[in-house]
C-alpha cells in the first residue's frame, strides 16, 4: 500500500519538475489554446462592446457601438454607448457631430470635440435615452467617447 502511494507521488513530482519549464517554453502555444475558450474575451465594459454601425464621411470614420448594459446577471438599467472617431490620416482639430446612437431617426446627443485642447462640449438632445457624457479621450490615433445611456428595456 505504501509503495502504491509512493509511486504516483514521485511521478507527480517529476511531472512538476518538467511542468515549470514547459509552462514558460510553451507559453505562447498554451496561451493561444486558452484564448480559444469561449470566456476568453474582454468584458464589453472594458472593450466598449461590438460595433453596431459605421458612418463614413469625407473626413471622418465614425464607429458607433452597441450600447453596453453589463451586469453580473442580466442587464443593468444604465450603461454606456461608445463612439470612435478616426481620421483619414490625422484627426481634425474640431469634431462636431449630432449622433443617433440607437438609429431610431432621433438625434440623441451633440458632441463638439477640440482634439488639440482635449475639450469636449456635450449636449443631450434626447433626455429619454441619454444621461450624460462619460469619457472623452484620445486613444492612440483616434478619439473615443463614452456616453451614459438608459436601458430602454428596464
Amino acid at each position, binding site marked *: 500500500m505504501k509503495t502504491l502511494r509512493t509511486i504516483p507521488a514521485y511521478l507527480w*513530482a517529476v511531472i512538476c519538475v518538467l511542468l*515549470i519549464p514547459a509552462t514558460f517554453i510553451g507559453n505562447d502555444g498554451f*496561451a493561444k489554446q*486558452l484564448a480559444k475558450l469561449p*470566456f476568453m474575451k474582454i*468584458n464589453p*465594459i*472594458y472593450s466598449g462592446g461590438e460595433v453596431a454601425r459605421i458612418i463614413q464621411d469625407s473626413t471622418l470614420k465614425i464607429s458607433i457601438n452597441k450600447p453596453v448594459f453589463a451586469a453580473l446577471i442580466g442587464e443593468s438599467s444604465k450603461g454606456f454607448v461608445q463612439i470612435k472617431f478616426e481620421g483619414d490620416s490625422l484627426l481634425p482639430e474640431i469634431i462636431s457631430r449630432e449622433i443617433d446612437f440607437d438609429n431610431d431617426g432621433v438625434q440623441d446627443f451633440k458632441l463638439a470635440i477640440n482634439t488639440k485642447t482635449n475639450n469636449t462640449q456635450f449636449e443631450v438632445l434626447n433626455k429619454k435615452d441619454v444621461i450624460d457624457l462619460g469619457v472623452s479621450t484620445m486613444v492612440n490615433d483616434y478619439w473615443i467617447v463614452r456616453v451614459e445611456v438608459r436601458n430602454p428595456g428596464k
Partner: protein
Amino acid sequence: MEKTPTFTTEKSIWKSTLLLIPMTLLTFIFITGGNPNFSSVSNIVAFLITFLFLNYLFFMILYTGKTDRYRAAGFIAMSLFFALVFIVNLIKARGSMSFNDGTLLSCEIPFCHIVTTMIIIPIVFTQSIIFPGSILEGFASIGSMLVIVIGVSLALGRGFCSWGCFYGGWDDGASRILKKPKIRKINPVFRWASFAVLILVALGAAMTLSPTYCDWLCPFKTVTEYEKVTSFTILLKTIVFVSLFAGLVIILPILTKKRIQCATFCPMGALCALTNKVNVYDLRIDKEKCTNCMKCVKACPTMSLDKIDVENGKPSITCMKCGKCIDACSTNAINYHLKGTQVNKNLTWARMLFLFPAFTLLVIFTGGTMQQGIVLLIQLFTTGSLF
C-alpha cells in the same frame, strides 16, 4: 527510530556541482531566452553577473543545506529589479508611471497574477474577463499570465508566493532588515485574513464588474503603475494604496519580521493556498526529531506554524514553502516532503524534487529582469540617465 537518509549534498562539493549542472543549463537557456545578446559590454556584464549570481545561489542551497537564506537573496533581487525595469519601460513607453482613460479604453494594462482572484466569478456568469488588458497581444497578456498561474499553481501550490511572485520580495526584504522583531506577539489567526480579503475582493469584483483590489487596494501600484490623479476619488485611491504599501509592505514587516502583506492581505496568496491542497509538495515535521523548541514557529514569515501545527507535524495550508523553518530547525526535523511518501525517508530526494522546479521558477522570473536592470544601472552610472 527510523534510519536517517544516507544521500545528501551537504558539504559535498562534487555532489553539489553535479546537481548544479542541469540548473546551469536551465539558467543559461532561460536568461538568454535561447538567443544570447552579447552585442555590448554592458549586456555581457549583465549576463555574467546574473548567471553567476543565480548559479551561486543554487550551489549554496545544495552545498549548505540552507534554503531560505539563498532563496531570499534571489527573490528580493527579483522584486527590486522587476520594479526598476517595469517603471523605466513604462516611462519610456508612456512618459509616466500613471495610466489614464486612454490606456484603459485601449485595453493595454498588463495583467498581473493577482487579478486572477477577481475574474473567476464574472467568468462563470458573464463568460468574459473583467480587465482592461489584451487576451494575447503585448506585455503580460491575459492568456499568457493565466497559463503561468495555472502551471505554477499546479506545480508548486503556494510555493509561487516565495519562489515566483515578483512582488513578494518587497516585504520579504523588509522583514529581514531588523535582527529581532519589535512586535513579537501576533495572533496566528491573522494568517486566515487573506482568505477574508479573497472573498471580499472576489465578491466585490463580481458585483461591480471591476477588479476591486487593483482599483482600490493593491499596495504594489506604488512600485508599478497607477491611475493618473484627475479626481478626488482617484486621489483617495492613491492615498489608500500608498498607505497600504508603507504599512503592510514596509513598516509592519520590519517591525514583526513577518511577510505581513503576503500573509494577511494578498488574495492571490489565499487562492494559491487552496492549490496547496492539490499539490504534491509540502513540509513535514519529524516528531521523533522535534524537540518542541518552537524556533520554526518564530521563524515562519507567514504565521503558518503554531504549537498545534507542530504537534500535527505539518504547517497549515497557508505555507509558502520558503524553507525558513527548515533553516531555523537545529535538529533537522523539518523537511520538504512528497505527499503519499513516508515523512522520514528519502529526504534529499524530496528536497531535490521540490528545489528544481521552485528554483527554475526563480531563475525564469529573475533572469531577464535582473539582466535588464543591471544594463540600466550601468547606463545610469555611465550616462547619468536611466532613459
